[in-house]
């Protein structure tokens, strides 16, 4: 008698396979980190295992938050100053970077000409140039805006250039076959194709600009969130340092998420990146 191997499946129709995540799982596990770390942190510091000055503690940071944000409001002028540098620097970077990126993408020769220098500067950590910049431009508004601009502009240019290159050849060929002028091709094919990439430029530029603001404030400022963090560090007010860091991080996350939402709205236009 030949033995047969039987595949008998008696699954339950309709039951969700355990492989699919439940809706709340993401939130649940996302919170685990906080639920575990925060109390642990508090306990470790209260017990004296880690000095208060080293890491501060959630309760101290919360107190500082209430103080500096609400009661005494010492943090707001700093935040305001930082946002000034941020907006001006980033705005300038976009205004100069997008056209430059478009030009470099369109005019191949210009690109070849400038490429070695742009690559070299891009490969250099911008912060290495900060002492020089501060020396030349002084300690005022200009040097800060310049630093923010410098940080942000390269990603803006590179992303925009990628956008021009991504304009699919077949759309361009189509336009050419209808005898479209160069300007019309630019308007009707290249700009729309580049748009998602310009949004990427915005997202990356925002991140870099934030870095630029903090860097500038660390080395040449007497206000701003970067200065607040640095100064609090020097005066060993670790609670304020952590507060500043947390606010900065949350700002970064919020801005990144914000731009990502905008990007997603226009996602369907994005040409295939090969």
């Amino acid at each position, binding site marked *: 008698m*030949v*033995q*047969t*191997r*039987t*595949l*008998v*499946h*008696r*699954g*339950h*129709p*309709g039951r*969700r396979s355990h492989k*699919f995540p439940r809706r709340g799982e993401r939130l649940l596990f996302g919170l685990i980190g906080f639920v575990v770390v925060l109390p642990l942190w508090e306990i470790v510091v209260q017990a004296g295992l880690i000095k208060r000055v080293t890491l501060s503690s959630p309760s101290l940071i919360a107190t500082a938050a209430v103080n500096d944000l609400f009661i005494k409001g010492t943090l707001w002028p700093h935040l305001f100053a930082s946002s000034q540098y941020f907006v001006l620097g980033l705005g300038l970077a976009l205004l100069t970077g997008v056209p430059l990126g478009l030009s470099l993408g369109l005019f191949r020769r210009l690109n070849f000409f400038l490429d070695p220098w742009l690559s070299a500067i891009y490969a250099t950590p911008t912060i290495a140039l900060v002492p020089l910049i501060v020396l030349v431009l002084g300690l005022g508004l200009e040097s800060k805006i310049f630093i923010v601009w410098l940080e942000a502009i390269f990603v803006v240019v590179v992303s925009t250039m990628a956008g021009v290159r991504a304009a699919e050849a077949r759309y361009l060929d189509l336009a050419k076959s209808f005898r479209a002028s160069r300007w019309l091709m630019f308007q009707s094919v290249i700009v729309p194709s580049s748009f998602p990439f310009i949004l990427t430029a915005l997202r990356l530029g925002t991140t870099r600009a934030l870095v630029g603001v903090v860097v500038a404030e660390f080395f040449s400022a007497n206000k701003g969130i970067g200065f607040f963090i640095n100064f609090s560090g020097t005066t060993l007010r670790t609670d304020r340092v952590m507060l500043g860091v947390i606010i900065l991080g949350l700002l970064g996350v919020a801005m990144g998420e914000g731009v990502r939402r905008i990007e997603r709205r226009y996602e369907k236009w994005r040409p295939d990146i090969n």
Partner: protein
Amino acid sequence: MDTGLALQARDVRMEYVDQATGERLLAVDRVDLDIVEGQFVSIVGPSGCGKSTFLKIVNGLFPASEGTIEIRPAAQGVAHAMVFQDSSLFPWYTIVDNIAYGLVCQGVPRKEARARAKPLIDLVSLTGFEKKFPYQLSGGMQQRANLARALTVDPEILLMDEPFAALDAQTRELMQAELLRIWSEASKTVLFITHQIDEAIYLSDRVLVMSARPGRILADITIDLPRPRRLEIKRSPEFIEYADRIWGLISTQLRPESPVAAAS
């Protein structure tokens, strides 16, 4: 299960829950199927009728909700192996490593696996391409490697899921002829899924016609054409008769809006 049968499916149903709408949908509805050892059986049907799903149930990738499938255990080798649609060779493995993969999955040491894969490489006419990477091969050659990979594990039944769907028309024809040649040398039982009626008739001993979703077997047509079959046979009157018959059945299954269905 009767001796002589390679596969016996009874009453196979598959129900699933649509993730988006939450409805319970039936993909496969009561399929009964007997396949004799050494037979080449095809299933044709309209898009989305569940034929691929049925194949995946046989392969064990999906669980059926009800019913049984019995496969005769092989003296050596595995019960079944699948030949996928295109692009399923691992791009990071060489051809020989890809073909030997099935054996490696069973724990065979790599060197031995490669040695055992060698005759299969010759069988599918890929000698000399062992060290190449998939991107260096044409679509037809990749599918040959795909086939060799499945044959290497010596399956009782070869399951083929529209393997030629992504090939251009001419390569497709050549591959069909190639497949018959390889099949006659390897003498396997084959369950073959396809869209193309011509392909099914040309290749098979039996063609099963599946209804639109939920899939049932509408007809089980024995193809009485002599073997070995040359491609020219596709233009013979008998062939065309089979094609008409099957097309007649399928067109009743097409969606009402389609002009073809309306015309028949």
